[in-house]
């Protein structure tokens, strides 16, 4: 029983990171049908910006909570702008072109980001400063970290915020309109390019939040950290129903839990098999994902 609880906590923590990353994939796919392969790498860039901020002297003299908040927000803003720039210069010129050329461009952006960070920061991994309290609560024989609760709560809050933004605001309505029909949206007077840029900004900022949180929690970041994580988050988005925001959240948690329980009850060598096996099964029997019934209504 205590093992089960422990695996549940682990799975939800890892799932939070997948879910936050999956949101970016799903938003961008929903709106321009692009699988943004560079998304995991934007997370990595966010983690490195956070590391740079937290290891600079200026920020070390303010209270820890304030330092973390500053690093998180600045990293989200900077990465958001980077995402916007990537969209403006790499994707926007290709929006009217073939789907394949924009996909290849996304791969190129991914490689450029990874190797750019490697050039700037060196190839080794970087250690985040140990700022979070290591307080663990015993729950039914398992141990639950206070930071784990924090990560879960913060991810949930960000996801909920995003959901409300997309469903309750004018810009959110514009996003959904664009997802339905780009040309019709343009005829209705919606600034299509502007909305797409904003979507990239938000998606990248969320990835950066996940990146900084991963750095703080695991204390180890490297320029390759985005690749595998990105692929898993993409799987989460597909399982949840790509283009669907609650789907990305649920998909992320499903992948996190699947990984934890496979590692716990079988062997961690099988966790990739379980994750990608689930993807294949999903694509075979329910290709629109868990939440993908209403095909028309994306996001």
């Amino acid at each position: 029983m205590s093992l089960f609880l422990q695996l549940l906590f682990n799975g939800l923590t890892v799932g939070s990171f997948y879910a936050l990353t999956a949101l970016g994939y799903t938003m961008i796919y929903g709106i321009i049908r692009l699988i943004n392969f560079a998304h995991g790498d934007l997370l990595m860039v966010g983690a490195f910006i956070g590391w740079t901020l937290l290891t600079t002297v200026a920020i070390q003299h303010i209270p820890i909570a304030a330092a973390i908040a500053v690093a998180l927000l600045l990293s989200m803003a900077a990465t958001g702008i980077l995402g916007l720039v990537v969209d403006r210069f790499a994707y926007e010129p290709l929006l009217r072109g073939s789907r394949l050329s924009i996909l290849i461009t996304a791969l190129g952006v991914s490689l450029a980001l990874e190797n750019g960070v490697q050039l700037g920061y060196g190839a080794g991994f970087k250690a985040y400063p140990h700022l979070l309290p290591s307080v663990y609560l015993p729950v039914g024989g398992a141990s639950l970290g206070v930071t784990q609760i924090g990560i879960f709560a913060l991810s949930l809050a960000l996801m909920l915020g995003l959901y409300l933004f997309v469903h309750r605001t004018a810009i959110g309505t514009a996003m959904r309109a664009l997802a339905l029909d780009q040309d019709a949206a343009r005829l209705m007077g919606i600034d299509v390019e502007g909305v797409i840029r904003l979507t990239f900004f938000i998606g990248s900022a969320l990835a950066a939040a996940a990146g900084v949180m991963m750095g703080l929690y695991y204390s180890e970041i490297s320029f390759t950290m985005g690749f595998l994580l990105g692929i898993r988050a993409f799987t989460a988005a597909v399982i949840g129903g790509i283009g669907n925001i609650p789907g990305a959240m649920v998909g992320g948690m499903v992948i996190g839990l699947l990984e934890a329980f496979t590692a716990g009850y079988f062997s961690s060598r099988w966790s990739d098999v379980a994750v990608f096996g689930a993807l294949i099964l999903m694509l075979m029997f329910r290709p629109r994902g868990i939440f993908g019934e209403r095909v028309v209504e994306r996001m």
Partner: protein
Amino acid sequence: MEKQKLAMLVAALALGGAALAPARAAEGPVKIGVPAPLTGSYASAGTDIANAAMIAAEDINKKSGVLGRKIAIDTADDQCDAQIGVQAAEKLVQSGDQAIAGGYCSSAAIPESSVFHDHGLPFVADASTNPRLTEQGFADVFRVIGRDDEQGPFAANFMKNELHAKRVAIIHDNTVYARGLAEQTRAALKKLGGVDIVYFDAITPGQSDYTSVLSVVKSDNPDVIYYTGYYSEAALIVKEARALGVKATLMAGDANNDPTLLKVAGPAANGLIITTAPLAQFLGGSEVQNFIKEYQSRFGHEPGPYSVYEYDAIGVTAAAMDRAKSTDPQKVAAALHQTKDYHGITGTISFNQQGDRENAVYITLIVKNDQFTAYKALENGHWVDVKAASKAKAG
């Protein structure tokens, strides 16, 4: 997935280009190739190896070089990956290197060794400890470091006779080196008897979260957990195990005596025990101290664990060329076999029939106050403090 294909395509194109370039003639400097992971998760170890090779070459060049010629170091990035390692090896062969001295991960070094063997180049490994490296029947592969079938029994002996462990968990990462060391340790523990191996499995390297595996290990209640993989994962495992409240003694193999581990794991690393060949700072002699000073002033940080072995790998190779009075690969390989009591900074080096170093030494380190400290060594079947052991030797 797509990305890997793309990367392979780019690499294939680059290789094609390299093949067109004519191999350099045997004049000018003597080129020694150094394959190492210069990028990727193990880049800090690889960079240390490349730096140490540079210093070794300069030290030799300052004296009189080799056969009156200068040594030039030619590095290639193998990323600790078998496929990329083979490409790196081909690159070194194509650029006309006369000998190879380097490597880090066994999973890259073993495939590389067969490329070098095919082209008749002698290969002196500095850090690859998997027994298979020198058991392929190649007469031109050597290593200046011990083997895992020496390290495994050493670790097992320490667990049973010094830690008095009854229950041991062994975790590896399915790489050639880690799996080999894990299996050697398990076999040695079984031979000693009286120790239960309660857990034996692999993790997937490159992830951030190993808590699920560790939760299972914890429920098996081991006295000792031995991780045989590399430092990038070990740092996380140590940190996450302590966070889970694992009380067992944590131990790790010789790929983990890297300072970066301490930065990531933080205070959780205290008490971690590592089985390893002696590090530079625990080796006596003024040459080692000079090397450490030189390294620190040049690169601004301490030399990593394998830098001293790479220094000796270059030295042994250069000495063999001098004895052979030639850089002809076959003559150099023959001369390497004759290496007897070479005076290196890691001690005297002699190669046995297979190309392995005779009488390789292992010690244990313990992390104390966020630093690696020399701990215990095996002297005549008894565990003694390392300082006492070296004193006893001196006296």
